[in-house]
């Protein structure tokens, strides 16, 4: 039997309306003919399989960019429809020209508003609309943008009306989201349905990020400017978009805390020192960049940054305050604004918008409220701050409340019925309303991203920011011949090389290392004591328990117990505070949480496995701290912490990149362990020395000390004898092989410091290495023999059997105190040199030039 080519008709029952772009009343629209033909080549099951492939690929992206350890729960619910949107060459020509025209007009508007305000003095629009806008900040007045480019890049939300007219629904010039989705959607559709692309020569979208990088670079006079992307780095959508753009442009993603202002310049804190920043690609709202320039906003920001911009020593893109162009209150006057600044009629008209502070317009809106959608004038946080608005502004009901209380901060737009397109769902195509966000760059040669972010929604357009997750998207095609070929010099620069490891990453890992070791240390000491209390000390020695407990409390920073002479009546309460209380800053639980906090802040730099391991421990401790307190529960919790932290160390060792950031994790761990040992020895050794009799058979104190530090086994192997004070001191202070000894930890920290790639021109790390060397030398030259005269002369050290020298507890205490201070100072130096750059070593020679 002859098999005919399968030819399905998926659109047989398609219920097209008058506003359908693909099926007008008189049949198939020209641009879609080939697409529909290509889709009809596939059988229904094939189509279903294609959409499934698309969904799977999209879901993987969602997982990939979800937060580590949290799977898809808070990840991106990415939906891409297999039916693309196709724009005709005529439509695209109009859109491209119209977008550039409008972008240039609003660019001029932003500049005017922050300088002479000619448009206001000439009364082209009511002055109170821009002047009351929370995005308008006096502290940004008079600041010039390089090349007069206030909105270097931005977007407009467009709709296509049933009669084919394109309108602008909203301006998105401050920090619009979407470019990464456009680029990614194209890639996904091309992978999952390559046949579709045979129907048309589609203009590529991928070069947009290259153009953007070029345009950013052009904002500085420097030959190879240092560009960073400034983010707050919280929400998943922006997390994906920012990471994507930064990777594609080869620039670093930074948070406000990564930047530092000095002498009217802004620097990026890296472990190699301060790197001057030339251009900041801003993805946070203007009011949050500098707490000095915009006080009372509650953001940390980068203190002094606005003054650096004012001095022309850094360019911020888009310029500070460019959000004034997004003010929905001025939408009504957009066509006038375009006319005023360009001298031409607006190519793309603006959708009707009503402002509620105008009585006539408000009446009109009230009469037609069923067909209107209310929106606040700005989506920014600053609107809520300006009004002291406690609630959210996310739902229509919220905005309704806002409109009642503060009509001057609300606009209304008629509910519109823009064009529709077929959407594939459940094996069928059904019409869905579509909106499009078109992106532009106002570089030397202005350009519009060919296509745009088309999202489909079954409901009306929503107030508030674009939400990717709630709606499906369409790849958007522009015929290649409709796009002017630009002769771009894409120089494949290896920009990755210049991104040094940020101080914040290093610092977070350093602290994670410290907190985990502190938790492990406290947990081990606690359960060792608990065990000792019953099996080692015997009932008569219960009073010996408290001094040891005090030593542990002191070592873990619980100062209020360190000074008590007697044990508290309720030792269970005390023990709970030591182990499980999350509010007690030195408790095991609190330390684990601090480690989680630190690692969570640099989630991009740690492996998902690590995160998972730590999360499990946190969840376990949460459960334990809610359970009824008992000694057994505390003992179990602390044993679990010791083994889980060990597991974490193993997982980290195996799954994390052993780069410089990793070394800081190790340095933190070793330093913490050295300090933990010292804090314990400071209290325990002088006390042991006071009661020490060499001829005693067994010193319970010393054995306990060895067990507390996890060194009992090491001692037995090394000395094969009962515990002698001098030997214990040697093992815990000096042994190069005992992982719990101070010397071991310092030597390892020194080794890690030595591997850091921080040499180069500034060599800032060299001096600190010398200092650690000196510290180790100082430790190794401790007069142990004098401090702890050996009872077995000739075996370990000098001394004569005739006159057994006495141990001087005060001398021991002084020596150890001095040593502890040195190690603590080492922490401060590491912090100054690598993290906060406050130390004189961190001063680059060029930093203070005039």
């Amino acid at each position: 039997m002859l098999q005919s080519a399968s030819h399905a008709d998926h659109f047989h029952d398609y219920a097209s309306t008058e506003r359908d772009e693909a099926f007008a009343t008189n049949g198939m629209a020209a641009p879609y003919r080939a697409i529909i033909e290509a889709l009809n080549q596939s059988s229904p099951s094939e189509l279903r399989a294609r959409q499934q492939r698309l969904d799977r690929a999209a879901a993987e992206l969602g997982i990939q960019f979800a937060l580590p350890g949290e799977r898809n729960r808070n990840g991106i619910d990415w939906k891409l429809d297999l039916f693309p949107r196709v724009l005709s060459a005529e439509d695209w020509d109009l859109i491209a020209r119209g977008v550039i025209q409008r972008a240039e007009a609003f660019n001029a508007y932003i500049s005017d508003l922050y300088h002479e305000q000619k448009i206001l003095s000439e009364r082209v629009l009511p002055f109170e609309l821009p002047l009351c806008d929370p995005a308008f900040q006096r502290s940004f007045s008079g600041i010039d943008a390089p090349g007069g480019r206030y909105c270097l890049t931005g977007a407009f939300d467009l709709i296509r009306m049933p009669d084919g007219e394109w309108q602008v629904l909203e301006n998105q010039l401050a920090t619009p989201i979407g470019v990464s989705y456009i680029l990614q959607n194209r890639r996904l559709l091309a992978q999952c349905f390559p046949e579709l692309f045979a129907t048309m020569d589609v203009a590529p979208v991928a070069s947009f990020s290259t153009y953007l990088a070029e345009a950013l670079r052009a904002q500085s006079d420097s030959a190879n400017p240092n560009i960073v992307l400034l983010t707050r780095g919280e929400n998943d959508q922006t997390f994906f978009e920012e990471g994507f753009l930064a990777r594609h442009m080869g620039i670093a993603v930074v948070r406000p805390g990564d930047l530092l202002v000095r002498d009217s310049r802004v620097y990026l804190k890296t472990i190699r020192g301060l790197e001057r920043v030339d251009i900041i690609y801003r993805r946070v709202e203007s009011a949050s960049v500098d707490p000095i320039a915009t006080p009372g906003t509650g953001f940390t920001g980068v203190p002094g940054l606005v003054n650096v911009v004012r001095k022309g020593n850094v360019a911020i893109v888009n310029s500070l305050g460019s959000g004034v162009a997004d003010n929905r209150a001025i939408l009504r006057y957009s066509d006038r604004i375009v006319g005023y600044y360009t001298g031409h009629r607006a190519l793309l008209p603006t959708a009707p918008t009503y402002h509620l502070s105008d009585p006539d317009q408000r009446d009109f809106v009230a009469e037609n409220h069923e067909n209107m959608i209310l929106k606040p004038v700005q989506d920014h946080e600053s609107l809520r701050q300006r009004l002291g608005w406690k609630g959210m502004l996310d739902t229509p009901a919220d905005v309704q409340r806002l409109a009642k209380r503060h009509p001057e901060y609300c606009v209304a737009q008629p509910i519109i019925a823009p064009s529709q397109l077929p959407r594939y769902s459940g094996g069928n195509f059904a019409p869905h309303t579509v909106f499009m966000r078109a992106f532009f760059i106002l570089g030397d040669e202005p350009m519009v991203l060919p296509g745009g972010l088309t999202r489909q929604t079954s409901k009306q357009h929503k107030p508030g920011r674009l939400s990717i997750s709630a709606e499906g998207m369409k790849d958007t095609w522009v015929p290649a011949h409709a796009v002017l070929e630009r002769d771009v010099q894409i120089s494949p620069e290896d920009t990755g090389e210049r991104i040094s490891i940020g101080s914040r990453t290093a610092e977070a890992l350093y602290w994670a290392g410290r907190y985990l070791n502190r938790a492990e240390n406290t947990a081990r000491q606690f359960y060792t004591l608990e065990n000792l209390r019953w099996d080692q000390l015997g009932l008569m020695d219960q009073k010996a328990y408290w001094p040891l407990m005090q030593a542990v409390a002191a070592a873990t920073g619980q100062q209020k117990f360190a000074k008590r002479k007697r044990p508290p009546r309720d030792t269970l309460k005390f023990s709970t505070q030591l182990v499980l209380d999350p509010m007690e800053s030195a408790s095991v639980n609190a330390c684990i949480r601090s480690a989680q906090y630190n690692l969570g802040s640099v989630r991009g730099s740690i492996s998902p496995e690590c995160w998972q391991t730590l999360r499990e421990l946190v969840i376990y401790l949460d459960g334990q701290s809610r359970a009824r307190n008992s000694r057994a529960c505390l003992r179990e919790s602390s044993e679990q912490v010791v083994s889980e932290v060990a597991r974490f160390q193993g997982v980290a060792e195996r799954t994390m990149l052993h780069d410089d950031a990793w070394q800081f994790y190790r340095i933190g761990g070793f330093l913490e362990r050295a300090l933990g040992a010292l804090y314990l020895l400071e209290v325990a050794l002088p006390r042991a020395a006071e009661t020490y009799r060499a001829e005693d058979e067994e010193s319970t104190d010393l054995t306990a000390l060895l067990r507390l530090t996890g060194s009992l086994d090491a001692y037995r192997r090394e000395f094969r004898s009962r515990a002698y004070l001098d030997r214990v001191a040697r093992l815990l202070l000096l042994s190069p092989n005992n992982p719990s000894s101070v010397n071991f930890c310092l030597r390892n920290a020194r080794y890690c410091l030595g591997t850091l790639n921080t040499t180069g021109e500034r060599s800032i790390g060299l001096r600190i290495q010398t200092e650690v060397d000196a510290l180790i030398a100082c430790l190794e030259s401790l007069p142990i023999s004098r401090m702890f005269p050996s009872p077995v002369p000739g075996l370990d050290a000098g001394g004569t059997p005739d006159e057994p020298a006495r141990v001087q507890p005060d001398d021991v205490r002084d020596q150890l105190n001095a040593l502890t201070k040195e190690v603590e100072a080492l922490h401060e130096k590491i912090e100054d040199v690598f993290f906060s750059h406050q130390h004189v070593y961190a001063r680059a020679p060029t930093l203070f030039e005039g």
Partner: protein
Amino acid sequence: MRFHVTHTTQYEYAAPASESFAELRVWPIDTNGQKVIHRELVIEPEVRADHYVDYFGNHVEFFSIPFRHSEVRVKSLAEVETFPNQPRPSILGTPVGEARQIYNSKLFKLFEYLQPTELVPLMPVRKGIRKCFFHESDEIGPALVRLNEWIFKRFDYKPGTTDISTPLTEVIKNKRGVCQDFAHLMLAILRNHGLPARYVSGYIEAFDPEKTDPNLIGAAASHAWVEVFLPGGFWWGLDPTNNQVAGERHVKVAVGRDYNDVAPMRGTYKGALDQRLQVMVSLKRTLASTL
């Protein structure tokens, strides 16, 4: 009159601070009423300060301290000559109604001096003070002086009872505060009545060496008063704390919509929250003016 002004601000931190940045507005401005003859800024620890002029015309200095420090001391020294500078009586005689019409004709330039701000909300005054201070036919000058006096008499000067975070509602309720509260209160009343007004920070000579008047208030620290925009463009200074028209004994430092625009020192640092702030202001008349 000629004055030597010394304005010292000193922060002591419980633990060493790092990453300090601060912005200062302690450089007196040049106006028709005063001329700065000499100005000097001393920062300890010694760091370089940069400078710009802000939107309101104030001199702003800023600096960062790139190393650990447990103390910052900023000393602003200035020699300022002040001159008698009062509006013509005919302007003070303008009826309020007419003045409002004049304001309306250039409303967009004056707009921000009529708007509520974070520190000058209009609601508390609308609710708490029902009195109408300005009738259409009132002469603007005397009406302003009456308001100045009303605040002076109605409110108690009680240092330490309020700080910059005390809302206006509370000042109105308790009828007490310090100079910046009275300035904010007066601004709110004026703006509610449609009269454009701005906040002034500066210094005042408390003790007149040539007279035996009682001492004036506000000399130990920065002082604050208000300026009202009069028809014709004159910003007229009124000091409700001292029931006076601002004159030769007032030295003007900065102007703005409220305290936030003129804060003498605003900064951030990293370190322990525990800090001690000390501000010392001295204003001494020199005899040079008689020469």
